[in-house]
């Protein structure tokens, strides 16, 4: 909300001469942080952030009232000439009960005159803009200065008396903004004999609006229920200054006062002649008193607060305070509909004392801390390990496009059940059933921007909608593509999309405790449309639920595994094998032949394929490592073991490479 500092000072003379920065700090301390200061209009205009519970502060006088309570200063007296109630020149019927309990009105004949320049400047500074019609400008000025919405009808366009009632099915109203609105029975309205003429507390009607030709005005200064006004404003998407004030709880006692102020302005500005002022209904009863135990103030404040001080602060806010044995009985003022609980009052005491006075303490630890949940730890450790292995964690939004969601989701999943009713757009309309699509897009963008290698992973929930409802499954997805080593020319340039890249990735995953069988969606990833031109733009991707990964407990107690203190013996065997030889079978056969020996490791350490080798053959360099727990091995026994493993290999068609 915009607050013009000159008008604020007029309501609270104690602010005279206070630097703007100091005023801003003061307001922030009261819970009204200032988001901006505009100095283009002479007196600085503050953009003040007002929380939804403080309808009473949405005016210059309301804000001044809070500042006055803080400073212990007095408000300027209200320049008011109270009117005597006169004859009801047209009937006003209230049919909506407690939602519209009171309606004050007046009928005036307008004379010549214009909105004063100072008021026009005031409205201009607030961005409201004077309309040049005194009845409209005065209503606006009152709203910003005192916070109570009022309305002026062109009295000559009203047929018969006024009724405040609920709309009937099928009724329509063209509001001041020129929009024809279909009303519902939950809309509160003002009607004349011809039908609706205003949406109560929200906006007037076009048919009865005041124009330059208007000669007589009928004023409205009423009280409407906050919830009803909010609902109507929301239903019609019509958020006005008036609906904001009524919607956050207006001060019922201001209704009569605002009418008198409005009449007074029209008399002063436009030589208006009051024909009569009258009202219907009665002001709602004041809110119930609240019992505030002083012990609660002490608990909330974190220190003993002198009840005298607390009572005085509440009184400054306009509360009536009577001290009793259990605490104070507090009757909040008519403008503070938000004060209904003792906690609300405790907050007020703290707020006026200043939050900076609250002491600082750490709460004592009364119960044992709970361990971190295994699922949380697993995710966190997995992310950390993948990052340490050279992969970048991504975060993508999580919405999917049904057109791209045709494949890849789980069995029995119904994408419609993952669909949002009110998405941002068609391509954001369902919750994703896979992470790979988003990850693939990220990979493509990176490659298109010149990255030579993309190493990406994401850990996030994916959605499946089965017969038992919507399920969120924490999932890991990974994409690795491009050229190994990326921009680093010293790492060599091998293409990740080759089978070699796959085995590297599988090796890495085995170190995380996942075998290929457990990898849900493991397949080659290629940048669509790029592969022809740049062969390196391919790689591997997979996705798997985190439940497929082993747990990563918080506390791991390793079990001691004895190791040998005797030397190890290594032997190399260069084998010629067929190009179609399955590695696993060969290694398995060789290891089986060495059962009972102190074999520590046996693996292929080099693959050699060259035209100098016999046709259809390749060379595998097998490295065997023996080590006994209890003695140094002799050359003869190792030779014998190597020979037996060679013979096993020969049974599969391998030869010793000469």
């Amino acid at each position, binding site marked *: 909300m915009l607050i013009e500092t000159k008008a604020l000072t007029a309501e609270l003379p104690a602010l005279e001469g206070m630097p703007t920065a100091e005023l801003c700090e003061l307001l922030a301390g009261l819970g009204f*942080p200032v*988001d901006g200061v505009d100095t283009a209009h002479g007196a600085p205009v503050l953009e003040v952030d007002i929380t939804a519970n403080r309808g009473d502060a949405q005016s210059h006088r309301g804000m001044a009232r809070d500042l006055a309570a803080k400073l212990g200063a007095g408000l300027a007296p209200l320049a008011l000439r109270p009117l005597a109630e006169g004859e009801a020149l047209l009937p006003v019927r209230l049919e909506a009960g407690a939602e519209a309990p009171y309606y004050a009105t007046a009928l005036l004949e307008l004379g010549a005159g214009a909105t004063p320049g100072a008021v026009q400047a005031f409205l201009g500074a607030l961005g409201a803009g004077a309309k040049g019609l005194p009845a409209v400008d005065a209503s606006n000025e009152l709203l910003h200065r005192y916070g109570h919405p009022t309305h002026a009808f062109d009295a000559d366009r009203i047929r018969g008396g006024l009724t405040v009632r609920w709309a009937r099915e099928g009724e329509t109203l063209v509001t001041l903004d020129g929009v024809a609105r279909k009303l519902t029975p939950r809309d509160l309205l003002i009607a004349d004999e011809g039908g609706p003429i205003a949406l109560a507390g929200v906006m007037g009607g076009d048919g009865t609006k005041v124009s330059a030709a208007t000669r007589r005005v009928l004023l409205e200064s009423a009280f409407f229920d906050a919830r009803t006004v909010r609902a109507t404003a929301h239903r019609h998407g019509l958020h006005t200054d008036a609906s904001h004030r009524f919607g956050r709880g207006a001060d019922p006692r201001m209704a009569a006062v605002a009418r008198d102020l409005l009449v007074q302005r029209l008399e002063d500005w436009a030589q208006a002649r009051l024909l009569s002022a009258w009202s219907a209904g009665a002001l709602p009863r004041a809110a119930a008193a609240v019992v505030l135990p002083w012990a609660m103030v002490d608990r909330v*404040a974190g*220190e003993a607060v002198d009840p005298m001080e607390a009572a005085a602060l509440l009184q400054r806010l306009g509360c009536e305070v009577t001290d009793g044995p259990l605490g104070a009985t507090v009757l909040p003022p008519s403008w503070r509909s938000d004060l209904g609980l003792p906690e609300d009052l405790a907050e007020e005491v703290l707020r006026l004392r200043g939050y900076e006075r609250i002491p600082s303490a750490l709460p004592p630890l009364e119960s044992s*801390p709970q361990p971190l949940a295994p699922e949380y730890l697993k995710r966190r450790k997995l992310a950390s390990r993948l990052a340490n292995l050279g992969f970048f964690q991504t975060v993508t939004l*999580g919405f999917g496009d049904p057109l791209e969601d045709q494949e890849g989701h789980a069995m029995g999943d119904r994408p419609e*059940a993952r*669909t949002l*009713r009110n998405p941002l757009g068609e391509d954001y309309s369902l919750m994703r059933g896979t992470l790979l699509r988003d990850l693939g897009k990220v990979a493509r963008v990176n490659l298109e921007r010149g990255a030579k290698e993309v190493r990406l992973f994401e850990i996030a929930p994916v959605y499946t909608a089965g017969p038992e409802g919507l399920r969120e499954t924490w999932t890991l997805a990974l994409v690795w593509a491009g050229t190994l080593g990326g921009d680093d020319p010293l790492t060599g340039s091998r293409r990740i999309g080759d089978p070699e890249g796959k085995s590297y990735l599988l090796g890495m995953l085995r170190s995380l405790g996942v075998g290929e069988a457990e990898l849900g969606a493991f397949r080659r990833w290629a940048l669509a449309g790029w592969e022809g031109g740049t062969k390196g733009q391919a790689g591997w991707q997979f996705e798997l639920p985190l439940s497929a990964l082993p747990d990563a407990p918080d506390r791991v107690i390793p079990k001691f595994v004895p190791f040998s203190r005797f030397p190890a013996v290594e032997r190399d065997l260069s084998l010629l094998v067929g190009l179609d030889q399955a590695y696993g079978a060969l290694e398995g056969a060789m290891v089986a032949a060495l059962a009972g020996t102190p074999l520590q490791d046996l693996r292929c350490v080099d693959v050699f394929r060259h035209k100098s080798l016999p046709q259809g053959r390749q060379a595998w360099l097998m490295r065997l490592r023996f080590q006994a727990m209890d003695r140094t091995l002799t050359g003869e026994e190792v030779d014998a073991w190597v020979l037996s493993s060679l013979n096993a290999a020969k049974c599969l068609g391998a030869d010793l490479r000469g």
Partner: protein
Amino acid sequence: MDLALLPPEVAQAHGSFPAALAACADLDGLMRLKGAFVGREGSHAARLMELLKAAPKEEKRDLGAAINTLKNVWEEGLKGRQAELEAARKQAAALGNAWDPDLPAPCPPTGALHPLTRLMDRLVDVFRPLGYHVEEGPEAETEAHNFDGLNIPEDHPARGSADTFYFKEQALLLRTHTSPVQVRVLQRIAAVGPDGLSELERAGGIRFLAPGRVYRKDEIDPTHSPMFHQVEGMLVGKGIGMHHLKGTLAYAMKALFGPGAEVRFRPSYFPFVEPGAEMDVRCPLCGGSGCRVCKGSGWVELLGAGLIHPNVLRLAGIDPEVWSGFAFGMGVERTAMMVSQTPDLRLFFENDQRFLKTMGGLD
């Protein structure tokens, strides 16, 4: 020795010996020079020895001594030069073997955690020593958990389909904050067990963080995203007041932003707390003098907090006359942007590896 006694070519060679020695650039050249002067055959020295053999007996002694002197001069000269050349060769060899450690070397690949993950992990680490654990809840939530249980009025605008995503078929929404985790945990710890006690009564309190993804119906722009992250914190105990909230947050903010961080605690309003508060931090960009980031105020809003509203406790089945507590919630993107001065929220979701490399990290 009288050079005149020598054969003229030997005398001439002797005269040019120092220059020839200096002209030898390597050991091979030196060996050739050595052969020419003191070699076994055909050298100047051999020539002189023949001369000595042929000399009359009475001259032999003097001539011999003279020849020896001459040979010594040559040999000393050659030896000295050889040492010089060998030293030079060693030095050259050493240079050849040396490696400049500043030459670029192959580097193991380095990845990174996402900056948002890092900040959330950091917050968990900051609160862990205070006894907080992590609680989580689903993203697809019920209205009861996301709104009702948090004392959010039935007609609150946030419930509207302009602000909150709803599912088409189920009566579910995408949670708009991490606060429904509060409701879930409060309901869980309020449930009375077979021993007649609730988990809350048995434990004497609870404190936890709830980090996670949340959704609001905002178009993507430099400061908004339909999905973002929050970290929620909650503590329930006995006799909990605003001083506990202030002390806890002051500790956490100093742990997060450094001991010099200046924070401000001021009143605010959220339906699920009473009293309500917000914590601001001194603008990291301008240090308080006022700039675009802090909109001239010198402060940047960091988190919302307050004492748990008695209605929230009551709705979960916890007696607010006995139990009290506080809650706070922080926007992760907002904080990450502010701390790192990242100009555009969308960078976090674009996942350019260059961004991730500089903004992320391994811990």
